[in-house]
């Protein structure tokens, strides 16, 4: 027993041994540095989303709201108030959490499939608000001219520096997410997924847990959205689109829900693929549709697990 545990520990270490350099040198492996940033941004988004979808079992089709809210509010804080970067990030996340509190409070009043429809409807509502309120958000054109103020004394004008800032935040987010899912609170969330009625009868305040899970995932989404605004120097209206909500769902499914690492991988893979494909064809969304259908039919446990099961199964 002891020996095998040590062996698996070493094996895990060896695993990290190439994963850490991979993340450090990722910008040099992608066609351009900024693609690596985008991969990590969506990884943060998908990681938080997995706490809600994979661990708590709530499928939300409205998480573009929080990604978009984070992006717009950070952008507006930096543009209109020339706020420092940290203030912008914190402000963006706070606005996102405030919105998530209202949307979450209303959405968790319904269950299952109704939850999906309600979150989707709210997503459309925020899309319309951003679209119509062009004076503030730039409407259809998006919010242009988001600056990249320095963080403390470090200037972020190079894509590489921004990547390392995002990497630091990514690692912090990952540690936070791991801490959450392995805590007693995380276990309680999982109990909601497997049997909500039982969790309730044990004495958990299920509504509160659901709302907290919703807020946590919105926090990650808002942070990712803010970073996205920095990364692009602009906030496209499409960040609030229902398709953007669909993107994070498919990232999670492809990577394998309820594993935390799976959605991170799924997000990075999908962003990379999207970038690769858009060089060849303008019909990325068509490919996305086929990808969605095939992955729901065949890759439900995540691409890594399914490939391993199908092609490398021993005996």
């Amino acid at each position, binding site marked *: 027993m002891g020996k095998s545990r040590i062996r698996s520990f070493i094996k895990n270490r060896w695993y990290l041994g190439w994963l850490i350099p991979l993340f450090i040198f990722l910008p040099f492996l992608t066609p351009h540095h900024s693609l690596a940033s985008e991969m990590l941004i969506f990884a943060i988004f998908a990681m938080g989303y997995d706490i809600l979808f994979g661990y708590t079992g709530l499928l939300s089709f409205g998480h573009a709201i929080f990604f978009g809210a984070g992006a717009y509010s950070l952008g507006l804080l930096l543009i209109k108030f020339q706020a420092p970067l940290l203030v912008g990030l914190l402000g963006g996340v706070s606005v996102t959490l405030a919105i998530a509190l209202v949307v979450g409070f209303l959405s968790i*009043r319904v269950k*299952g499939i109704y939850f999906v429809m*309600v979150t989707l409807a*709210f997503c*459309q*509502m925020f899309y319309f608000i951003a679209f*119509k309120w062009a004076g503030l958000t730039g409407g259809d054109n998006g919010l242009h001219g988001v600056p990249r103020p320095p963080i403390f004394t470090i200037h972020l004008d190079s894509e590489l520096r921004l990547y390392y800032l995002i990497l630091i935040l990514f690692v912090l987010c990952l540690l936070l997410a791991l801490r959450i899912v392995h805590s007693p609170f995380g276990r309680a969330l999982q109990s909601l997924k497997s049997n909500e009625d039982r969790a309730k009868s044990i004495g958990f305040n299920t509504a509160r847990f659901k709302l907290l899970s919703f807020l946590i995932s919105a926090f990650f989404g808002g942070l990712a959205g803010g970073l996205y605004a920095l990364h692009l120097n602009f906030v496209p209206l499409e960040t609030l689109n229902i398709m953007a909500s669909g993107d994070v769902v498919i990232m999670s499914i492809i990577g394998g829900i309820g594993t935390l690492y799976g959605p991170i991988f799924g997000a990075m893979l999908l962003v990379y693929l999207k970038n690769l494909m858009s060089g060849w064809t303008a019909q990325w969304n068509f490919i996305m549709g086929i990808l*969605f*259908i095939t992955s729901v039919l065949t890759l439900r446990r995540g691409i890594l697990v399914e490939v391993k099961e199908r092609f490398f199964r021993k005996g």
Partner: protein
Amino acid sequence: MDIQFISVQLFNGLALGSFYVLLSLGLTIIFGMLGVVNFAHGALYMLGAYCAYTLVQVYSGTFWMALILSPLIVGLVGIVMESTLLRKLYDLPHFYNLLLTFGLMIFIEEFIQIIYSPMGKPFNTPEEFLGSFDLGFMLFPKYRLFILVVTAFLAIGIWLFISKTKLGAVIRAGTDDSEMVDALGIDISKTFTLVFGMGAGLAGLAGALAAPLQNIFPYMGMGILTETFVVVIIGGMGSIFGSILGGIIVGELITMGVIFWPPLANTLIYIFMAAVLLLRPRGFFGRAKFFE
């Protein structure tokens, strides 16, 4: 703002509501039977509009032909979707099927976008429906009146079909416990396919009816899909009366919103939905423990 103007707008709201009624009826019977929220419903509506466009503008058929053929073609697409793909996932948690239909929605929209280009296509009001009809107290466009009449007939027909026929009884029983119906010796999987085809056909008809009122474009289904979701959230999923009431409310809210407060026109229905969620989370006619 005189009373005539208001009453015309109220009627316009009803005509708009008709589309929501047709779509949410299809959505709700599919959901009641299969437990699937059909995200592709908006795409099927768009497909119906493109069917009508192709038949009338490209092959210069009559509008009546389009009204009959579009629902049949779209219904057939629905039957193929159900019997080849959706069927595979019935034993899994419901959300997998929902995600599958979301994928199908993207697929159908992009497919049409590739074939017909993303640009909108104009579609003229058919000649026989040009002009207005004198209702005594006001003039109302003939075509919108026609939509109202068709929807009213269909809604009554569906209600009669579900509540009075033998097949309707099977559908109602299947809504409550499809395994039990299967055990009683009725081929429930055929009924599943039929119901999905019917719902899809209704969406196709709504699309064909909507074509003359607007330019048609590949993504026209997305907006109406979310609005239809709002209808079923307000009315209560699985209820025919809920669909009708919800459809009328949403149609009126959008029409009135455009007149009285344009910036908020698109948002009004979501605010109303939020209020309903606060007061009656299951909607007006929603049932407890119904696919929750």
